[in-house]
């Protein structure tokens, strides 16, 4: 359980003078330092955090009203542009990059009084499911140091579970918030695609990239979503948010219809994961939820669709790293082309190169129709099937990943095996629907998450039912 009270309670304590922002920042920095060996954190933003805490404490002393996150420390995944430390997306090619502006999500959190204290580790550029693709360090699972914390938001997930801050902010392209939340044991929320501005976040695959919170409770996740959601002129893919607050949850299970995706409980799923998920579903049923099993025949194709479209978009998005405008640059090049090539060869890690080359392949003439176009069409098929399913059920439910946290090094020799860790999370990404991972495993065993998905823009309904499920499953 978390060492921190709920975020709203914490902000209330700061606002009413029972607690100071400075004390909270110091507590956060102390825990980060004490638990350094988990490799959750790349570097702190301590100087700026202390300055901001001082300013906030001063304003409160003068009687000013701060905001809903007054003085609350948080940790940002290192693919968010943040002041106070370098921003690298855990990649060598961006080592030493200083953000000239902050991400919209960070600005919104700061406007409500939150304080970023550190940048968390990830698989470089978000490419991975274990943080083993980070160019700097491997994050260890808070429950077992010989295992991974999941990825790509392994740093943020471990940081929250280790109590380094009351919440972290991450990104999810194919499961990168939900899977590490499942592996490490926290709540991870992937909102509807477009609900949160991606401005100032280093792009991975733009058609599925979303931003969301990693927290200790569903209520905390709802509060953070409410702060960061909404249209942004700096991200033209953002959609209108609900007019009402995402914190006005109506937690109810009775009468809610859940569809259990049959394909996600096949024999390929680890028996412990299956047992936990089936047990959780039984509990929901006891609380009045209506459970029905259903089959989504295109779901087994989702991973193949994802590993065509995602590398295609990556190959395009990573084209900008050419060593001329920012980031690492190969100094000894004799001409521009050599500068591009050597910069990218030295600067990118193996996984980035692998994905750029797969993306280049599926987009190249002669293969475009067979791979890229075909994947886009199967994506339509998948979306249609989900839309059809949501006509008969309110939510879809299943595991987050086929296994609990695996051993460090277990999957690094086989990239395809590593990709299979995303098999249950990529569908929601391709369809653009909200999805949450909530912890369900019994104490003593490795954490396992329960995944609940809802139709596009039903974020409030999803958070409401997740809060009800959290109460039953705790």
């Amino acid at each position, binding site marked *: 359980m978390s060492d921190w009270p709920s975020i709203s309670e914490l902000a209330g304590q700061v606002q009413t003078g029972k607690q100071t922002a400075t004390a909270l920042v110091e507590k956060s920095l102390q825990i980060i330092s004490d638990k350094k060996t988990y490799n959750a954190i790349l570097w702190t933003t301590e100087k700026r955090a202390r300055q901001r805490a001082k300013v906030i404490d001063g304003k409160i002393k003068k009687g000013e009203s701060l905001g809903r996150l007054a003085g609350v420390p948080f940790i940002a995944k290192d693919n968010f542009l943040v002041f106070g430390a370098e921003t690298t997306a855990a990649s060598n090619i961006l080592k030493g990059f200083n953000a000239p502006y902050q991400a919209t999500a960070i600005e919104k959190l700061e406007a409500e009084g939150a304080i970023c204290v550190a940048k968390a580790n990830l698989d470089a550029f978000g490419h991975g499911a274990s943080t083993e693709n980070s160019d700097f360090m491997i994050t260890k699972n808070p429950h077992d140091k010989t295992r991974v914390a999941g990825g790509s938001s392994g740093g943020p997930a471990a940081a929250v579970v280790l109590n380094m801050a009351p919440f972290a902010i991450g990104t999810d392209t194919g499961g990168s918030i939900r899977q590490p939340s499942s592996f490490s044991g926290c709540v991870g929320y992937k909102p509807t*695609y477009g609900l949160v501005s991606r401005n100032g976040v280093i792009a991975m695959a733009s058609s599925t990239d979303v931003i969301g919170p990693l927290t200790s409770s569903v209520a905390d996740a709802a509060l953070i979503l409410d702060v960061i959601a909404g249209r942004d002129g700096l991200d033209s893919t953002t959609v209108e948010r609900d007019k009402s607050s995402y914190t006005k949850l109506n937690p109810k299970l009775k009468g809610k219809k859940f569809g259990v995706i049959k394909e996600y409980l096949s024999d390929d799923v680890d028996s412990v994961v299956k047992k936990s998920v089936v047990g959780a579903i039984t509990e929901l049923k006891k609380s009045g939820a209506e459970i029905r099993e259903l089959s989504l025949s295109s779901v087994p194709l989702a991973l193949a669709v994802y590993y065509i479209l995602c590398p295609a978009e990556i190959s395009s998005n990573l084209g900008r790293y050419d060593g001329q405008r920012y980031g690492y640059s190969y100094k000894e090049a004799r001409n521009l082309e050599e500068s591009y090539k050597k910069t990218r060869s030295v600067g990118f890690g193996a996984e980035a190169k692998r994905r750029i*080359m797969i993306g280049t392949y599926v987009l190249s003439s002669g293969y475009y129709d067979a791979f890229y176009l075909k994947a886009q069409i199967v994506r339509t098929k998948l979306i249609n099937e989900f839309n059809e399913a949501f006509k008969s059920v309110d939510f879809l439910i299943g595991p987050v990943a086929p296994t609990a946290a695996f051993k460090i090094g277990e999957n690094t020799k086989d990239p395809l095996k590593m990709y299979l860790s995303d098999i249950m999370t990529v569908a929601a990404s391709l369809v653009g629907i909200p999805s949450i991972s909530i912890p369900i495993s019994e104490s003593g065993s490795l954490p396992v998450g329960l995944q609940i998905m809802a139709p596009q823009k039903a974020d409030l309904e999803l958070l409401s039912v997740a809060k009800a499920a959290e109460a039953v499953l705790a």
Partner: protein
Amino acid sequence: MARLTRDDVLKLAQLAQIDLSEDEIKRFQGEISEILEYVALLEAVNLDNLEPTDQVTGLVSVMRDDTIIDYGITPAALLNNVPATLNDQIKVKRTLT
């Protein structure tokens, strides 16, 4: 699907502007072939005359007013990250040799 040849890998690397070491060529030849074989499972799917999906928001041609907005980002902050500059401009290597 045929496995990638060494030449295929070199051509991809050339298109992607990446120089590969001998070890990387060998490694990627196997790994990328394996991944492409996996994703080729889509070959057997019946497409039912469906249209491709580019994006999921349904937003089309999002416009904003054609006015200058001051985001408070200075040229100095941007140039600060540039590997080589000359007279406040980005300096690059020669393009012709």
